[in-house]
């Protein structure tokens, strides 16, 4: 579903964020990416929907060379790729419904979406998406009135409204408390399992990766240094492996605990 071939990324300011990344994510996988802050996790994720450009190599999503797509082609590729963020990034001054409907903009001519004229089937898609994350009762609320966990659920609903094949999550729970963290991760897993949406999530807490992912990739200084399926992996072994990825013992705040 997603394939990186010899991908490197050097930012315009000269920072080398990723080096020689080769990675294939199969359809339906739940991939967790872990690594120190600054290791290149966000960079990797943002190459998948071309929020940033690759410096060299190829990124392929669902058969399309995303790193070469532009204009309409790129927008059509992005339409199939949902993304949620640490800061939620929903539009606070709009209603929950408008936010979720905005997930449909790439399916319609611009004049329609500018006027906010989404057809009834789109509204049904939006309602269903909100129902999936148990927040349908807030459909007419202003997004800014919601708590962090609720805002992230609206963000997930917006991504679901895209009817995506791939879901990207850049530290989706880093701004949430432990209880809402588990809720949001549960929704992500549910969507991954029930809809078969390939999921790639950057996670700060290594035990969340262990609990939710089907495969863990560790990045250190822009290189993949660890790539293991979770199935059959035991906890102590996993934590020993993580110390390799981090180059030091796991910190207290890198484990959520009782997850």
């Amino acid at each position, binding site marked *: 579903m997603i394939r990186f071939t010899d991908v490197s990324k050097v930012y315009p300011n000269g920072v080398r964020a990723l080096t020689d990344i080769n990675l294939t994510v199969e359809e339906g996988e739940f991939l967790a990416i872990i690594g120190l802050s600054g290791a290149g996790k966000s960079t990797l994720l943002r190459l998948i929907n071309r929020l940033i450009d690759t410096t060299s190599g190829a990124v392929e999503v669902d058969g399309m060379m995303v790193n070469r797509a532009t204009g309409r082609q790129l927008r059509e590729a992005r339409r199939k790729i949902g993304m949620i963020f640490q800061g939620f990034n929903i*539009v606070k001054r709009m209603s929950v419904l408008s936010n979720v409907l905005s997930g449909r903009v790439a399916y319609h001519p611009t004049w329609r979406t500018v006027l906010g004229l989404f057809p009834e089937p789109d509204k049904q898609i939006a309602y269903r998406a909100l129902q999936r994350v148990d927040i349908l009762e807030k459909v007419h609320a202003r997004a800014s009135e919601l708590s962090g966990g609720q805002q992230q659920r609206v963000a997930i609903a917006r991504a679901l409204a895209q009817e995506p094949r791939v879901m990207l999550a850049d530290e989706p729970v880093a701004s949430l408390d432990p209880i809402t963290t588990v809720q949001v991760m549960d929704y992500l897993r549910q969507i991954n399992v029930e809809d078969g949406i390939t999921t790639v999530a950057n996670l700060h807490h290594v035990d969340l990766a262990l609990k939710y992912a089907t495969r863990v990739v560790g990045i250190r200084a822009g290189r993949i240094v660890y790539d293991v399926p979770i199935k059959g992996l035991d906890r102590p072994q996993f934590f020993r492996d993580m110390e390799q990825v981090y180059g030091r013992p796991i910190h207290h705040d890198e484990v959520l605990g009782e997850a």
Partner: protein
Amino acid sequence: MEQIVVPKKHNLRRNLTILLVAALIIGSARFAGFSIVGTLSGILRGGRLLGRMFLSPAWSYAPRVVDPLVETIRMSVVGTFIGALVAFPVAVLAAENFIRKPLISRPLRFILNIFRTIPAMVLASLFVAVFGTGAFSGVLALAIFTFGLISKLTFESIEAIDYGQVEALMSLGANQINVLRYAIVPQILPQFLSYTLYGFEVNVRAAAVLGYVGAGGIGQVFEQNLSFRRFDRVGVIIILTFFVVLAIDFVSSAIRRRLV
């Protein structure tokens, strides 16, 4: 308790500054022909004039002030509206975080800066010379003045938005117009409306004097009465204008407070 002794700050620089400023003031006063005696007699004359304006204003003249006052407000409304309407797209193009075409935004910002430095009064005199006296010239002057003011404030607002919301929209396949509609406009609309109202407040005040150069509105009536030395009528005009401007300021800033 023991006294703390701090060495005196040496004041050479401050003293030099005071000296320089004093020299500048005196120099320019002389250059402008300022004299104490002249000022005092001026104040006396002014006092007598004020007496004629405000001690017995010609209230019977008030109904004839209404129309030009309404015209002034209308000029401000139309001028503000046109200015704001043009300012919005231009601000979008001038903001450097969205379109990201320095070849467009740089020259645009330069032009906007020039626009903002021209006082409405100067624009009005210019347009009166070109298009003749009347409200049209006034409206045009106000529109351009408002345009300069609002476009600058708005592009600065656009540059201060939460870019995460823009990225989120891009990530789901939105084109730039969609990004504008769903990520930028919701964030800046309250500010934009607030700037527009502020522009309106400024314009009402500016419009009140624009007539002085023949650009329509209450200023024109003011100027006529002044030239006929009808100070009792001038008093009425000033009083009514004052209260209208005050009322508009009051209402408008009350709305603005609720906007942002």
